[in-house]
C-alpha cells in the first residue's frame, strides 16, 4: 500500500490470558459487518483522494496552466496535510473518541472535496488539497484503530486487512472512474472537477453511516464509561461474550495508556534511538521506492512515453490492478517469510525493475512500443513493491518499538513517511521534465540499493519473537554496557 497506519500489533493480538466464549452469531455479527463496511469508507476515501490526481492532473494542469513544479505542489499539498493529520488525528481520537473523530473527518473530507471541486485557481486548490490531506492522514490513523477496537480479538486481523484492501481498492477505483469519465466526457470543460467530485459519495456515506455506529468500547472504558461500553459490546457480541469481554477490554485499555509513556528524553537511550532511526529509515525508504510516483503520475508517465491521453489513462488501470494483487500477495507472505528476507528481496526486485524501466526508456525508441514496455516494468515494480516492502514496512513499525514508547516512536516514523511521500510527489514531475525518465528511475534504482544496504546492516529480525524477547536481545547487543 502506498501509505498506511499504525497497526498496534501487540495490543490487538488475541490474548491467551483471556479465554472467551464464542463471539456469537446472527444479529451481532451482522451488526459488526455493517460497522466494518461503513468505517472502511474511510480507507476507500484515503485511496480515492490520493489516487484521483492520476488522470485528473492532465486536464487540471491544462486548465490552470500549471508548470511541472506547481503540478507537484498540487499533489504534494495533500501529503503534507496528511502528515499532520496522521500525527494529530490520533490525539483527537484519544480525547474525543473514535466515533466523533471519524464523523469530524468525514466532514473535513466533504469540505475538502468541495473546496477542490470548486477551486477558482491553483492556489485555492493547493489549500483545499491540504485540508483534504488532514482528513486522509486522520483517517489513516483513526479508522484502523476503531476497527481493531470494535472487532472481536479473533477477527481483528481480518478487519484491519479489509481496510488496507479498501485503501488500494480506492486508488484502483479512482483510476477506473477517471478512465471512464475521461474517455466518454473528455471533451467537457474542466472534466477534472467531476473526477474529484465523485469522492463526495463515499464521504457522505461515511458521515451518514457513522452517525448510526457505536463508539469503540475500548475507548469508552479508557474514559471510565464502563456501562456504555457494555451496552456497545452487547450490540456486537453474544450476551455472554459481551460480559466476558469487559475484563479483556479493560486490560487492553490500560496497555494503550502505557504506550504514550516514552518521549523525547528516551531517545537518549542508545538502543531506543537506534530502533527509532531504523523505523524512520523504513518510512523514508518505503516512499523513496517511488511507488507513489506511479500511483500519482502513472498516466502522465505513459503519455510522456508515447501513448495518447485516452489510452494512457486506461493503461494506468493496470498499475492499480497490480497494486491490489501485490498487496493481497504481500498480506499472505507476511506470515510465511522472515522479515529480513522479505525486505531484502523486495528492495532487490525494486532496484532491478527500476533499472529495467530506466533502460527501456533509452533502448526502446519513443512511441507506443516504449510506453507499453515501460508499463510492463512499472506494473512488475508495483507488484513486487506492494507484495513485500509496502505492507511489511507497516508491520515492522508496529513490531520493533518497546511498548512504552510506541506512540511517540510511531508518530516520528509515520511523520517521516508522509513527508517523504510529499517530497516524492512534489519533485517527481520537475525531475522527469528536467532529467527524463532514465535518470529519474536510475536514481530510484540507486536509492533502492542504498535501502538494501541500510536494511542489511541495521534491520533486526522480529518474526516469531515476542516483544519482550526481542527487546532483551536488541538491548544486549546495542545498549550501553
Amino acid at each position, binding site marked *: 500500500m502506498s501509505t498506511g497506519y499504525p497497526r498496534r500489533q501487540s495490543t490487538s493480538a488475541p490474548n491467551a490470558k483471556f479465554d472467551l466464549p464464542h463471539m456469537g452469531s446472527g444479529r451481532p455479527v451482522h451488526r459488526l459487518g455493517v460497522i466494518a463496511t461503513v468505517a472502511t469508507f474511510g480507507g476507500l476515501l484515503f485511496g480515492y483522494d490520493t489516487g484521483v490526481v492520476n488522470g485528473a492532473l492532465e486536464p487540471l494542469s491544462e486548465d490552470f496552466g500549471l508548470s511541472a513544479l506547481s503540478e507537484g505542489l498540487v499533489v504534494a499539498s495533500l501529503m503534507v496535510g496528511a502528515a499532520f493529520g496522521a500525527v494529530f488525528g490520533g490525539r483527537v481520537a484519544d480525547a474525543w473518541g473514535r466515533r466523533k473523530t471519524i464523523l469530524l473527518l468525514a466532514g473535513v473530507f466533504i469540505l475538502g472535496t468541495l473546496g477542490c471541486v470548486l477551486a477558482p485557481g491553483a492556489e485555492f486548490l493547493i489549500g483545499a488539497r491540504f485540508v483534504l490531506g488532514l482528513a486522509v492522514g486522520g483517517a489513516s490513523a483513526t479508522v484502523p484503530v476503531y476497527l481493531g477496537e470494535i472487532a472481536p480479538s479473533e477477527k481483528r486481523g481480518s478487519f484491519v486487512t479489509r481496510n488496507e484492501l479498501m485503501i488500494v481498492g480506492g486508488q484502483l477505483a479512482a483510476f477506473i472512474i477517471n478512465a471512464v469519465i475521461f474517455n466518454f466526457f473528455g471533451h467537457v470543460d474542466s472534466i477534472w472537477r467531476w473526477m474529484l467530485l465523485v469522492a463526495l459519495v463515499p464521504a457522505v456515506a461515511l458521515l451518514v453511516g457513522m452517525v448510526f455506529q457505536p463508539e469503540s468500547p475500548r475507548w469508552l472504558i479508557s474514559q471510565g464509561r464502563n456501562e456504555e461500553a457494555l451496552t456497545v459490546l452487547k450490540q456486537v457480541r453474544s450476551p455472554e461474550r459481551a460480559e466476558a469481554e469487559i475484563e479483556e477490554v479493560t486490560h487492553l485499555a490500560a496497555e494503550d495508556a*502505557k504506550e504514550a509513556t516514552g518521549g523525547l528524553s528516551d531517545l537518549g537511550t542508545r538502543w531506543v534511538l537506534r530502533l527509532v532511526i531504523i523505523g524512520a529509515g523504513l518510512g523514508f525508504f518505503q516512499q523513496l521506492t517511488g511507488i507513489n510516483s506511479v500511483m500519482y503520475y502513472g498516466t502522465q508517465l505513459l503519455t510522456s512515453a508515447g501513448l495518447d491521453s485516452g489510452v494512457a489513462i486506461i493503461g494506468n488501470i493496470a498499475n492499480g490492478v497490480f497494486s491490489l494483487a501485490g498487496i493481497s500477495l504481500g498480506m499472505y507472505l507476511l506470515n510465511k517469510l522472515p522479515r529480513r528476507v522479505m525486505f531484502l528481496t523486495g528492495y532487490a526486485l525494486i532496484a532491478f525493475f527500476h533499472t529495467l524501466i530506466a533502460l527501456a526508456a533509452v533502448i526502446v525508441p519513443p512511441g507506443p512500443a516504449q510506453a507499453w514496455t515501460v508499463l510492463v516494468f512499472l506494473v512488475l515494480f508495483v507488484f513486487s513493491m506492494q507484495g513485500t516492502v509496502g505492507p511489511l514496512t507497516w508491520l515492522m513499525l508496529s513490531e520493533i518499538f518497546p511498548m512504552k514508547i510506541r506512540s511517540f516512536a510511531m508518530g516520528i516514523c509515520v511523520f517521516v513517511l508522509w513527508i517523504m511521500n510529499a517530497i516524492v510527489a512534489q519533485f517527481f514531475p520537475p525531475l522527469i521534465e528536467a532529467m527524463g525518465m532514465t535518470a529519474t528511475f536510475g536514481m530510484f534504482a540507486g536509492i533502492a540499493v542504498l535501502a538494501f544496504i541500510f536494511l542489511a546492516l541495521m534491520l533486526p529480525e522480529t518474526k516469531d519473537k515476542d516483544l519482550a524477547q526481542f527487546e532483551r536481545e536488541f538491548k544486549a547487543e546495542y545498549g550501553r554496557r
Partner: protein
Amino acid sequence: MSVAVAVTDSPEGRHALESAVAEAQNLNTGLLLINLTLHDFTEEEIPSGLAVTVINRSGRGDRDPVTAVIDELNAHAEVDRLVLGVRARSRVGKMILGSVAQRLILRSPVPVLTVHMDASVSGRG
C-alpha cells in the same frame, strides 16, 4: 526516613541502584525505586534484603522522566534523599539532548547523592 533512587536504562542507572541499596541498608531504611526505563521491573530485577517500593513509569503524564521523579518525591514525604547516576557527556550529546540528571539535581526537593562509574570506565561517553 527513606532513600529514593531514579534508575535509568544505562550502566549509571544500574550503578545508582546498587549504591542506593547500600545506602538504604546502611541507614537501615526502605528504598523507593523509581524505574525510568521503558520496561516494568521483574521480580529478579528488584533488589532483595530490604523493603523496596517500585514505581514504574506509565502513561503520558510520565513522558518526562524528571516530572515523573519529582511527582513521586512530592508524593512520598518520607524520602529524604535521592540517589542518581551521572556520567560525562560528549559535546554533541549535550547539544542535542538535555540532561535528565542535571534537571533532577536542580529541581529535586530533597538532597541528591550522585554516583558515577569508576574513573577507568567513565569518560568513555
